[in-house]
């Protein structure tokens, strides 16, 4: 882990600016996330409260609440872009690592959000459905939406605890022990804040009468009380004593929250409505100071880590430096190579085995148990050659080249044929064979060779299981010399064994027999 390094590309903006922008944009994003979640929770609650839509729809509170969902969620999504960008640039390694740990859930976010958003927006925008269906859609959308902050809370928990990465990895990519408890409290803390902000928003902007306001008051107060309890629990889980800055922000937040609670209780007891000019600034002050607390707790671990990662990145970059020139030259040259002609394709894709001269003596030939064929010795048909190129030779190193479309393979075949004239029947034998010898060879072919090659030269039933299979003599041959060579020495790595013990004349006879199968 000490060897982890940052990315090699420099950061595009100064750290202080990055952290400032991150904090600001994250606060904005979170505000709308809380409103989105709060709106969703309250809308489902008030739908059930209205006897699942039993009351006239114009009067229904849940409907008016849900109408605001589209604006909240759209802003939550777009405002989330900046913090995501900034955190990925500023804390690249910790963030992507944490994402990676929870990758399946992280990617599911896309699916969950789409279903939840479509569900709520459909219900909120006059797409009236039967109330049971409305209930089912609402509950499903809410359930999926509530998973989302859970995933983010898990990622941030891993993100802030690089010391536990090894443990998370060994534990099967799950949060365990203290981290799991921390995650739970943190998750509930987000939901609590959502209830507070959601009920606050709808209290001031949507509620139309005292009944509705009273009801939201209860949510608001309960939410704040819950936040106090969860805050204390989270504080108890802090691994070390917080420094002065953290304590100061925390105190500001607690005092603001306490004043808020006191103010709320005092107006409730006098049966008066909340004053937005008091409640809103206090709420925002609590939000900002609590987020600052979070930020500074996180910085304690991550800032030193980031320094180390950057130092490692510089060291790593220096190790790579010697290769840079050569790499760029190779890259520049490769841009000029176009695989649209036979010559290029041959020299890049074939020659490392078959050799620049097509003699089967490429750079890698000696590493292969089945040697690459001497291309200049091949005598075959266009069609068969295409079959080999497109299908490869199973049981050998020869791969299939369907990575090139038919046009390209045709050009390759043209090139090979032009250079080595391989699309033809084999040339006549360089030696003369007497009829007696030819008949003797024929007997040997029938008794021995045909067991594998088949009496017709297309390969016997037995040979179908071979890896590689023998070639089809009716469409594929090698030059007389090369055929003679294969008969004499066998074909390494295949079932074809050497028959050098036969007299040379007989072997030439066999060459003739094999070649006569062409075109039959």
């Amino acid at each position, binding site marked *: 882990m000490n060897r982890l390094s940052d990315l090699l590309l420099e950061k595009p903006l100064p750290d202080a600016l990055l952290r400032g922008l991150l904090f600001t944009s994250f606060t904005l994003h979170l505000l709308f996330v809380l409103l989105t979640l709060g709106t969703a929770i309250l809308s489902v609650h008030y739908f059930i409260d209205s006897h699942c839509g039993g009351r006239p729809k114009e009067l229904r509170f849940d409907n008016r609440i849900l109408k605001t969902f589209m604006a909240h969620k759209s802003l939550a999504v777009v405002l989330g872009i900046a913090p995501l960008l900034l955190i990925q640039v500023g804390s690249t390694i910790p963030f992507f690592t944490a994402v990676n740990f929870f990758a399946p859930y992280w990617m599911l976010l896309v699916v969950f959000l789409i279903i939840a958003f479509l569900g709520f927006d459909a219900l909120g925008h006059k797409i009236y459905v039967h109330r049971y269906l409305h209930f089912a859609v609402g509950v499903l959308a809410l359930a999926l939406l509530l998973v989302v902050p859970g995933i983010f809370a898990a990622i941030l928990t891993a993100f802030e605890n690089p010391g536990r990465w090894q443990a998370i990895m060994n534990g099967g990519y799950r949060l365990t022990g203290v981290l799991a408890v921390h995650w739970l409290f943190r998750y509930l803390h987000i939901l609590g804040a959502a209830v507070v902000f959601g009920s606050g928003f709808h209290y001031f902007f949507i509620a139309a009468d005292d009944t509705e306001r009273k009801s939201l008051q209860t949510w608001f107060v309960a939410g704040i009380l819950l936040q106090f309890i969860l805050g204390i629990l989270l504080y108890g889980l802090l691994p070390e004593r917080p420094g002065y800055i953290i304590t100061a922000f925390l105190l500001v937040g607690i005092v603001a929250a306490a004043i808020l609670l006191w103010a709320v209780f005092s107006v409730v007891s006098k049966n008066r409505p909340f004053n937005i000019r008091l409640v809103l600034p206090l709420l925002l002050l609590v939000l900002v100071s609590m987020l600052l607390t979070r930020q500074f707790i996180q910085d304690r671990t991550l800032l030193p880590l980031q320094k180390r990662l950057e130092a490692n990145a510089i060291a790593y970059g220096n190790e790579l430096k010697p290769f*840079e020139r050569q790499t760029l030259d190779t890259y520049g040259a490769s841009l000029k190579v176009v695989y649209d002609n036979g010559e290029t394709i041959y020299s890049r894709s074939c020659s490392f085995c078959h050799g620049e001269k097509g003699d089967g003596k490429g750079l890698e030939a000696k590493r292969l148990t089945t040697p690459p064929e001497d291309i200049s010795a091949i005598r075959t048909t266009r069609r068969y050659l295409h079959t080999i190129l497109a299908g*490869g030779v199973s049981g050998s190193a020869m791969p*299939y080249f369907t990575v090139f479309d038919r046009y390209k393979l045709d050009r390759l075949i043209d090139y090979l044929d032009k250079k080595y004239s391989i699309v033809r029947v084999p040339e006549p034998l360089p030696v003369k064979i007497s009829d007696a010898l030819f008949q003797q060879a024929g007997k040997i072919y029938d008794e021995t060779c045909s067991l594998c090659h088949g009496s017709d030269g297309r390969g016997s039933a037995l040979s179908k299981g071979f890896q590689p299979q023998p070639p089809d003599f009716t469409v594929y041959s090698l030059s007389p010399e090369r055929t003679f060579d294969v008969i004499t020495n066998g074909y390494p790595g295949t079932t074809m064994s050497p028959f050098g013990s036969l007299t040379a004349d007989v072997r030439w006879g066999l060459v003739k027999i094999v070649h006569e199968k062409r075109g039959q």
Partner: protein
Amino acid sequence: MEFPVFQFSYLGSGMVIGLDAVLHVIISHGLAIGAVSFIVISEYLGLVKASRDWEAFARDFLKFTIIITTGIGAITGAGIWLITSALSPRGIGSMLRIFFWPWFSEWIVFTCEVIFILIYYFTWSRWVRERKLKHIYLGMMYVFLAICSAWLITGILGFMLTSDGWPWAKSFWPAFLNPSYLPQLLLRIGMAFSLGSLFSAVFLLFTRREGTFRIEALKLFGKAALISFSATAVFAWWYFSVVPSTFKTHAVFAVLTSRFSQQPEIFWYVNCAGAIMLFTFSLVSMRSASALAKILIIPALLVSIGFVGEFERIREFIRGPYLMPGYMYANQVLLDETPFFNKEGIVKNDPWLTMSPDNQGIAALGAGLFARNCSACHTIGGINDIAKKVDGRTVDGIFVILAHTHEMAPFMPPFSGTEDERRTLAGFLYGLSKGTVKEHTPSRFAPAHAHGGGTHE
């Protein structure tokens, strides 16, 4: 090798990103730019013709569009980023650094865009009569911002194919204003209006009754479709003419894949048939044959979605071995790193692999090497299954092929690692093809059996 690995089972990284991205393109181009433009035009026609039909059509279509764009469009757009964060962190992390400021500007533009469309939507019934024209300006402002979004994002997309001088100079502007930038931007706008006119026609034909309004509107959308299709075709031609031949030559294969690459005529037949289909639809609509148009519209929409998918597939595929040409290969190995790893070894330079429990078994090492070298494109047992790709090859054959992947198949990156590591990987792959290594897709390093953290560092 800063990050651990996650491999998406069965579909593979590319397919997951691709599916999400195509869905996003259809909505962001077709609805967010295209359809909303036609909504604003319809609203304007409602005003100048004092037509309640045009006005009502625009309003209803907007409701549908805004639910889909803010619900699916925005999320799939962010989704491309979320998914690549999980599957290709080094690539996206590096791109974010080079293109930080366009990305950040995009955030501002996107936020304004959302604010404008929300105001446009929520003020529809309130800004009427003398304020109507102002309301229409709001819509135009939104469309302008949406095009600005495309303007910012296209620079980044173009870079991934034509990074031009960036690998040498590492300076921002040539990277952003790369050679394929302008043609791609125009092509995308052409696509937006093509899809937009088709979506408008679908909404029209399926929500409005037969009558003079439907005929009048269909004529307009048909004419718009004809112009947009023609413009898209011209810009597509321009775009492909600036793509370097070294990449472009793989375009046919990108579409046909190994499965159909030996019948390349299919590529031309299908594309011509698709184009004829689209032009037929636009001519039928202009001739006001609304019954026939209703039959043709769904196939036409599917064809246009197919074209979008084809374009994105080609663009993403032909950049082949590179994620960032001249800097990073598709498997997230830097170009500079390959010779370094070939000399020093990739395993010991991979903190995550060395950290993972059970990292010393041949299967675990092989799976680790596969993850780093191959898993950006290949899966084990799924799409582009590596076991099928190497099936039939001998182990020495695989060993040799691995050393030449980038030459043999020019859209593959080279293998990074020492000869010993290459032999380990060859053995692993051979075992996979023979079924002797029973590795179900190792989504991560060393499937954590929790052996108590056997790090070897």
